[in-house]
């Protein structure tokens, strides 16, 4: 039943404005892939292309071995869950859920049985006769989920399904969505701009920026080994330090900044390091130490209190960096220090 989705080099325009460019993406059978990115980067547009509400100007979309590219939207057999629920206001909860079955010519009694069974699964059997207007946001989203699932679609798509819900419910619902998707083994494409949400429920996450996918990988890889400066920044590697390798000694390398400060790094820890690269670190991965040791000489600026550490804005030559220092030793602005990267919190970015 479940099938793989392949988006093959699609380009999309609104009028003459290009919104997506040469975008490729595939979601394996039963996999949940999230599209994550800032507002306006083209996430909804991607879903609309797959759903058939928008035609790509180039490229193809396939579901299993079926080519969807030119298929009318109502023949695509995709379960959709919208941010604003999009329930039919004039139909009861049960009729909402049964709607897709009715289109599939499922006979009356069988239809009701299946709709009720699905409502039971999302815990709303007792509200079957209500109109959507009389439901809470969370209940509405459950109905929307039931309505999309009951047709047993080979592909489920979600467009920010939780962003109208409060924080607590958001967490409950995302777990519920993930469980239902897993249990049915349905392939799913999930749009969100919430990093935690995307990372917590996805098998893989595509980080999008201005109509392109910057990196598509498991949350673990994205979080530890971002492939480029954009993704690094996105997942919290705030410090980007351009370096040039000066000496190689087996796995050990020494690299220098433009100002000549030298760092020693191990390829055993960080993977292969090219001659010119950027070292990305999180604030936690840049330790503030007394001057003198190996590292980046820097001057501290503003200090903020994080609870678990002090955070400093620091300047090292032309670079402005963010580093964390121990609570035991608050340092004043203007103090000269050495910043030492902690390899466990670093990533190597190849030149783009």
């Amino acid at each position, binding site marked *: 039943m479940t099938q793989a989705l392949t988006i093959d080099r699609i380009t999309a325009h609104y009028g003459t404005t290009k919104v997506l460019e040469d975008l490729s993406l595939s979601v394996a059978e039963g996999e949940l892939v999230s599209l994550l990115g800032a507002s306006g980067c083209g996430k909804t547009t991607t879903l609309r292309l797959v*759903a058939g509400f928008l035609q790509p100007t180039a490229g193809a979309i396939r579901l299993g071995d079926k080519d969807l590219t030119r298929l009318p939207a*109502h023949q695509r057999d995709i379960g959709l869950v*919208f941010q604003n629920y*999009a329930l*039919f206001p004039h139909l009861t909860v049960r009729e909402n859920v049964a709607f*897709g079955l009715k289109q599939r010519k499922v006979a009356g009694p069988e239809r009701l049985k299946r709709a009720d069974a699905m409502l039971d699964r999302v815990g709303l059997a007792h509200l079957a006769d209500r109109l959507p207007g009389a439901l809470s946001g969370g209940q509405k989203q459950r109905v*929307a989920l039931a309505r999309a699932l009951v047709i047993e679609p080979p592909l489920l798509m979600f467009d920010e399904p939780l962003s109208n819900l409060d924080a607590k419910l958001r967490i409950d619902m995302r777990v519920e969505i993930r469980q239902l998707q897993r249990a049915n083994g349905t392939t799913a494409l999930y749009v969100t701009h919430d990093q935690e949400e995307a990372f917590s429920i996805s098998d893989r996450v595509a980080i999008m920026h201005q109509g392109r996918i910057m990196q598509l990988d498991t949350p673990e890889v994205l979080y530890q080994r971002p492939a480029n400066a954009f993704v690094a920044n996105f997942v919290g590697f705030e410090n980007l330090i351009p370096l040039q390798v000066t000496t190689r000694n087996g796995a050990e390398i020494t690299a220098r900044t433009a100002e000549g400060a030298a760092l020693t790094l191990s390829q055993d820890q960080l993977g292969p390091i090219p001659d010119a690269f950027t070292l990305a670190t999180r604030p936690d991965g840049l330790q503030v130490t007394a001057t003198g040791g190996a590292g980046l000489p820097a001057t501290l600026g503003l200090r903020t209190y994080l609870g678990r550490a002090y955070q400093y804005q620091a300047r090292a030559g032309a670079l402005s960096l963010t580093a964390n220092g121990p609570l035991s030793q608050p340092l004043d602005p203007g103090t000269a220090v050495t910043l030492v990267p902690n390899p466990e919190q670093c990533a190597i970015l190849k030149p783009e």
Partner: protein
Amino acid sequence: MATRIHPLLILFTVLVYVFLLGPLIIIFGASLSDTTYLTFPPQGLSFRWFQNIWDISAFRRTIVTSLQMAFLGTGIALIVGIPAAYALNRYRVTLPGWLSTLFVLPILVPEIVIGFSLLRSVTVQAGVPVWYALLIGHTLLVIPYVIRVVSASLASFDFSIEEAAISLGSPPARTFFTIVLPNIRSGVIAAFILSFITSINDVSVSLFLTGPGVSTLPIQLLAHMEQFFDPTIASVSVVLMLLTILVMIIVERTLGLAIVAK
């Protein structure tokens, strides 16, 4: 807690009601008068002036024509206007802004101008028979109202539910009838009533388009007044009012009126 209402406010309200309803009461009373001239309060009580409408064949015929124009004109206007309003709202982002203004422009043009230009073009130039010309006139007269009122309903309609229905396998045309239409029903009913009333009471457009043997009730009323000044005028007015009210009640009963809700 009893809120005291200022006496002046009560007086003002009463005056407004007298002003609004007074003439209607006078007409109603005059229509029942047993005299051969218009008078109020009625002297004697008789239905003979209502009987008179029935006896004068011109009135019988024009009532039928008026109802035909109102029902058919409104019907055609709904068939044309609802899809137009739908398209204007559905594709609002992609359509130029002046387009929707264009569709309601006829409201701004004096009806008398519309009547005259239709006479020039449809009747004189194209030689369309009177009855059809009249129907075209009535249809054009009410289309802007339909578009305006239905658009107001569609403005608050969430088009993503249409997409939800399509994604669940409902073809676009069926989706329009099963999903869109039920959700803009109140607007459609309001459009129907407004159009019907506009059409059945219209004088300006009809004045130009009526011709030999084909006339509407208000026009016949004017013609009658030029010769006679008997209570028939009042009784016809009452009939016109009752017809309107009757249609509204029927529409409300059959379609479930919810104008106030929207």
